[in-house]
């Protein structure tokens, strides 16, 4: 992706729109009153979380990709505001993609290689 400030910011807005839905869905999974339980801990048991992965794994994975991109791209934009220069910009962009890919791979492994509950 080009390092133009305008394109970086447009991707921030696009991912922000996606995050409203995806993160809203994710947070609602943890609101105990919605699910008929009394504490947040009851929505964090191994069985509950495993069920989330099995039924909504694709949504959680998409959320991880979009949130990672939005967060890291935001930091990239701030760092590119702070200083300019060809080598600096290349370094920031390479670091952005390394961190993004590394954590995206971990998130993918969580869903793709999830062990059985028992």
């Amino acid at each position, binding site marked *: 992706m080009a390092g133009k400030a305008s394109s970086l910011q447009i991707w921030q807005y696009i991912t922000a729109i996606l995050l409203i839905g995806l993160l809203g869905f994710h947070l609602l999974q943890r609101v105990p009153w919605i699910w008929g339980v009394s504490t947040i801990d009851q929505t964090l048991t191994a069985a509950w979380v495993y069920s989330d992965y099995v039924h909504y794994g694709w949504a959680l994975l998409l959320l991880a990709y979009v949130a990672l991109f939005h967060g890291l791209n935001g930091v990239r934009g701030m760092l590119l505001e*702070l200083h300019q220069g060809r080598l600096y910009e290349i370094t920031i962009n390479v670091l952005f993609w390394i961190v993004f890919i590394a954590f995206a791979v971990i998130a993918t492994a*969580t869903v793709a290689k999830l062990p059985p509950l028992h």
Partner: protein
Amino acid sequence: MTERKGNAQELPNRPGFWRSSINPWTVRTRNNPERVAFVLHRITGFIILAFLLAHILETDSPVWSQYFPYNGLSGWALWPHIMAIEAGLAFRIGEFIVAGAVLFHAPNGVRLLLTEFFGVGVGKPGDPKPPYVPFTFTAAQRQWLYAVFVVWIVLWIIAGVIIFG
């Protein structure tokens, strides 16, 4: 530390960056809650990103513990152990701070989407007249900003009830 590119002269933007971004209260701007929201948006963004990276590693624990068992536990057997650690007060306070960060960042992000991306709520340009108040300061986005602060506090209280309840 100016750079020349052709006939254009680029002035460095570094001086003042930290002062204006990290400590906006030292910048003398009256009647500018947008400035406070700008800095809060950045600070909460950093908090959320730090949590996100830790959260991805934490939720991957059933997978990575199969290769690197922790305290002799691997797979889903490790999960209750991690949840027990996170039930401690220090982690609860951390979750409360992250919840506050998310609950400010998201509504303020919606305001920024509306004003910056869709260009609504910023008022119409016109001839400047005394006392030269920027049109954006009297446009709908200012009311939206106050609404963001109210929604933030209300939702944060509800989140506190859920987290510490």
